[in-house]
């Protein structure tokens, strides 16, 4: 039995949700557990149709809490695993996202953001979960979050999310929005051998010497999986390098939690990706991500035509936050404009990194994303 090809090399016309599903399968994801929710449902539907053909598992769980729990279980059993949801489901997943961070379970969580809070606006886009992605679970930890702004990136960044999750043993988020998820665009899927795939480090120690949470120099511990003969323990409790609970030790707690943060913070330069357009001499910098960045680039080009020195800084990595890139762009800029589909979330990080350069927020809620003309008007108003 060979089944169908995992990598559908070629030029396609597909939606962002389908591209995300294909990216996951191309990345080697062979386990998906989810629960239907607008506007992420099509990811589950496409995976349900495709997974059995490539020998992978799709299961619809009873809720999003169960979905993320099953994903962590599948990851520990050795498969690359994913779930996809939207705001309400993302909220339900938060406790187990903390468990994935604490037990260093590589996994990918796609959040197709819609309007919130609560049930909000299921069919309209939002960018209101970007802070929840960073801070949603209790305690200190670091995660990685990526923000696709095209259907092609729904494919590419889902693969990248798996590679990062496997490299750093960390839950990794694809923070999409309803527009990039439902939009149909051209997607180029390269030949399988041209796609970079990263798999988790395996231990090279014998089972009796294996300490499941003993990090290498990169602060990431090699990962044995269930059934490989290592007979190890993992727990959401504070644990030592052997996985044993150490709930009364300040030393172990400090060492563990600091490492969980540092393995991302100290590797941030390797993780962070941004797109920079016309920033060399930019006096007005537009900081935008997701679908909003598409309108922002159009606005920046129009501003240039009108003689305004505008540029675009698009974080592809939302977390860890590309602080150095913002600080550098801010040094030459008179103002930074932050259009977001929320009441002010990433703008706070921009303000912190701008080191005094004026930052203007441009919120938009409850309808389609900012138009290029709206952003251009904002550039003209604040660029004087």
């Amino acid at each position, binding site marked *: 039995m060979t089944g169908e090809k995992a990598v559908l090399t070629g030029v396609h016309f597909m939606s962002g949700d389908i591209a995300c599903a294909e990216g996951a399968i191309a990345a080697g994801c062979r386990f998906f557990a989810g629960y239907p929710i607008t506007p992420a449902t099509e990811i589950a539907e496409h995976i349900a149709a495709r997974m059995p053909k490539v020998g992978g598992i799709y299961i619809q769980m009873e809720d999003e809490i169960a979905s993320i729990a*099953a994903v962590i279980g599948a990851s520990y059993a050795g498969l690359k695993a994913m779930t996809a949801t939207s705001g309400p489901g993302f909220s339900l997943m938060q406790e187990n996202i903390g468990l994935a961070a604490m037990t260093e379970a590589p996994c990918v969580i796609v959040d197709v953001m819609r309007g919130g809070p609560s049930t909000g606006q299921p069919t309209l886009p939002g960018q209101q979960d970007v802070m929840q992605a960073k801070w949603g679970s209790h305690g200190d930890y670091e995660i990685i979050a990526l923000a696709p702004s095209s259907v092609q990136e729904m494919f590419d960044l889902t693969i990248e999310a798996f590679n990062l999750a496997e490299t750093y043993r960390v839950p990794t988020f694809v923070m999409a929005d309803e527009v990039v998820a439902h939009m149909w665009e051209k997607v180029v899927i390269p030949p399988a051998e041209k796609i970079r795939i990263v798999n988790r480090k395996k231990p090279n120690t014998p089972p009796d010497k294996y300490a499941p949470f003993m990090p290498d120099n990169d602060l990431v511990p090699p990962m044995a999986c269930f*059934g490989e003969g290592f007979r190890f323990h993992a727990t959401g409790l504070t644990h030592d390098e052997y996985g044993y609970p150490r709930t009364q030790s300040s030393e172990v707690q400090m060492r563990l939690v600091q490492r969980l943060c540092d393995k991302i913070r100290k590797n941030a330069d390797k993780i962070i990706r941004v797109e920079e357009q016309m920033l060399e001499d930019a006096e007005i910098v537009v900081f935008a991500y997701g679908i909003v960045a598409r309108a922002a680039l159009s606005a920046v080009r129009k501003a240039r035509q009108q003689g305004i020195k505008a540029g675009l800084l698009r974080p592809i990595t939302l977390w860890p936050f590309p602080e150095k890139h913002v600080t550098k762009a801010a040094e030459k800029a008179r103002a930074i404009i932050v259009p977001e589909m929320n009441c002010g979330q990433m703008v706070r990080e921009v303000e912190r990194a701008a080191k005094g350069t004026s930052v203007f927020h441009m919120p938009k809620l409850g309808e389609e994303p900012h138009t290029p003309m709206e952003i251009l008007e904002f550039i003209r108003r604040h660029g004087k």
Partner: protein
Amino acid sequence: MTEAVEQHPLSKYLRAAMMPHIWCTGCGNGIILNAFVHALDELQINLDKLVVVSGIGCIGRAAGYTNVDSFHTTHGRPIAFATGVKLANPQLEVVVISGDGDLFAIGGNHFIHAARRNIGIKVICANNFNYGMTGGQVGPTTPLDALTTTTPYGNIEHPFNLVHLAAAAGATYVARWTTLHVRMLTMSIKKLLQRKGFSFIEVISPCPEIYGRHNKMRTGLEMMEWFKKVSVIANFSDPAKAEITPEKIVVGEFVDIEKPTYEELLHNKMAQIMKEGEEE
């Protein structure tokens, strides 16, 4: 002349580094763990292919005490986690050992859906009638009128009849024993490990330090005497009529049937889909 042995014959099943355990004097959890490792030993289970998963609560530490691949999840989620493990690698024997609050209050939804799907995971529930680890609050199996720290005037909630719930949700093997019935419990755990489908054993377990203290059974012995006095063995009786009352605890096997597991149906379906794909 008997020779001195350095190690207990069952010590290979336990993690010495995790000892001493956290359980109180008179607690039934040690009896349950003992029955479990005896069952593993008698069946000569391949320990490299066994995964023990538990949730939060006193018995939740059992996963860490067992010397196999083990995972201690968030509160209420061991069955959902175990579902992912079992589907990702159906060759693994996946056993969930957890408590009544973890499995039937916060985690109740996962229990009924895993039973409905007939996922081939095995669930052992230590039912001690209350939340022991947090100091003895009312739980989903606390008997009517029982005193707990959050029902200081007596419990007014009707308790779950777990074997009835499991049978109704579709479990293919259902049994109930108390920690007094050690041999039957061990025999039952062996059956649980040999069944293919979703299997469930409820073990009525004494919690003298916390539950018993509030309910006139201050020692493990007193609680065991209660079990002895009121338990009635009735194999394959109607689980609907097996409600636990102060006067009667029906124990025994209630369900032992076979039906296709989720994994079997899934892999049959996948094989069929792949074959059709090749023929196209």
